[in-house]
């Protein structure tokens, strides 16, 4: 994966039947890159387990997690830091910036960010003005520092019109839907996989 400038991708994936695995695979970079997770719908520990299930190797000195799930615990060995709840955008943003700075100041030039997921954030934070301010701040930091951001959202929690508006801070959108097997368990869901489409950033 080559990048000339930082890129931010919004990936839609249904919560029911979605595994986040295809998204996680995008975040497994080279050994000298940093990785920052922000989790609101699963704990930091669960996120690290998923990362390792997908073939990633968790390395504390180049990785960190902001856990805003309300159910997670701080972990010094795993570099997991907690924020009170998904509605606390101030806490998420400050902790994210702080950890990002720490990774960069330790000599890591490029940081990948995985955000699981925006649906929870939108559920707890009704004011779209605050959401845009939050998204611009995170995606702006990623873009100006030549990083990569993958943000997951459940499309069934938002209207298509709202999704189109939320797309604006992002460079591309990828849609992932559930597999045939899952669709059989959940009638009405169909299988469709699209590659991550970007505008012109050259990501995938």
């Amino acid at each position, binding site marked *: 994966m080559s990048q000339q400038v930082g890129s931010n991708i919004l990936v839609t994936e249904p919560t029911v039947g979605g595994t986040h695995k295809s998204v996680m695979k995008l975040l497994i970079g080279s050994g000298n890159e940093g990785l920052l997770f922000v989790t609101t719908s699963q704990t930091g520990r669960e996120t690290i387990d998923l990362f390792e299930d997908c073939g990633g190797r968790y390395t504390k000195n180049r990785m960190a997690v902001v856990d805003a799930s309300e159910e997670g615990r701080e972990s010094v060995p795993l570099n997991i*830091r907690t*924020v*009170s709840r998904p*509605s*606390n*955008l*101030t*806490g998420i*943003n*400050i*902790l994210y*910036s*702080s950890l990002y*700075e*720490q990774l960069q*100041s330790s000599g890591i030039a490029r940081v990948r960010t995985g955000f699981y997921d925006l649906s929870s954030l*939108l559920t707890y*934070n*009704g*004011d*779209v*003005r*605050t959401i*845009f*301010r*939050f998204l*611009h*701040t995170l995606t*702006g*930091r990623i*873009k*100006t520092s030549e990083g990569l951001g993958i943000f997951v959202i459940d499309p069934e929690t*938002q*209207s298509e*019109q*709202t999704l*189109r*508006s*939320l797309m*604006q*801070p992002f460079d591309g959108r990828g849609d992932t839907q559930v597999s045939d097997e899952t669709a059989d368990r959940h009638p009405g869901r169909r299988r469709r996989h699209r590659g991550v489409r970007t505008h012109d950033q050259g990501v995938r």
Partner: protein
Amino acid sequence: METRIYSDMDRETIAVLHVDGDRGVREDVAEQIGEYSDMSVTGTRTIERATDRLADDPVDCVISEYDLSDGTAFDLFSRVREQYPDAACILYTDATFAEIDNERSEEMVVEYLSKRIPGTEQRLPGLVRDITRGRMQVGYPVPENEDERLDTVTEYDLDEFASSPAFERLATLARSHFGVNAVFIGIMKAHEEELLACRGAEWSVFDRQNTICTYSMLEDGPTVIEDVQADSRFEHNERLEELGIRSWAGVDLTTPEGTVLGELCLIHDTPRTYDEADLEDLRLFAEEVVEQLELRRRIPPSETTPELGE
């Protein structure tokens, strides 16, 4: 109605206000930022003094230590955002995450830079420029070509056009044709939407973050929000409710070169629908507005004829 007057400084010089009780830090920051000709910085030590400055001069960016003698940076940033919603706020502080009361102000989205990490003061000017020029803290979506779009908007002498009765006549006709409470012709500037004409309400300017237009500009074709309070993007916007904007329909004012200057908007105080014929008529009204704008752009005011409504 919003009454502040933004400067056009964001297009030229970035005006920075720095608040820190430590004079040495203020001097260091002034020195760092002072090296750049596209930024100006004013330093002060308390929220009270900073508030006075805000009343006197517009700001594009506020940098603050967390602990101040008369409150916290969040108290200051709240005041800044009330007055200048698009201003960038940077917490440049000795305080660690654990020392910041982040639960008291959960929606205070700011940039955070720790003084404890060596060399961060040298990063401040770049951060200020990235956030302000890159519109990294605004509370609304921004078109991809925003810089070019704003350049095009400046080609139209909107102050001159606003005094033209032609736009008021078009708004009057549209209001009568569609049977709505209000109609306005809005031009989207960097931080605000300025109304060239408005009929049915006493509106002249909106903060950009409180406009539906800044969303519809990103859509193709006319946009209809039948019930604003049923749309998740706007249901929590208390300003729209205060103004009685319950139903909204708008179409882009697009130049012949394809740049969107603003919107022609229909407002109603109850939910309502529009059929295809209505939307086609709305497009025609918008085309007429753009044609009037184009005529006035091409002809200097001194040469404008009575036929153009002067």
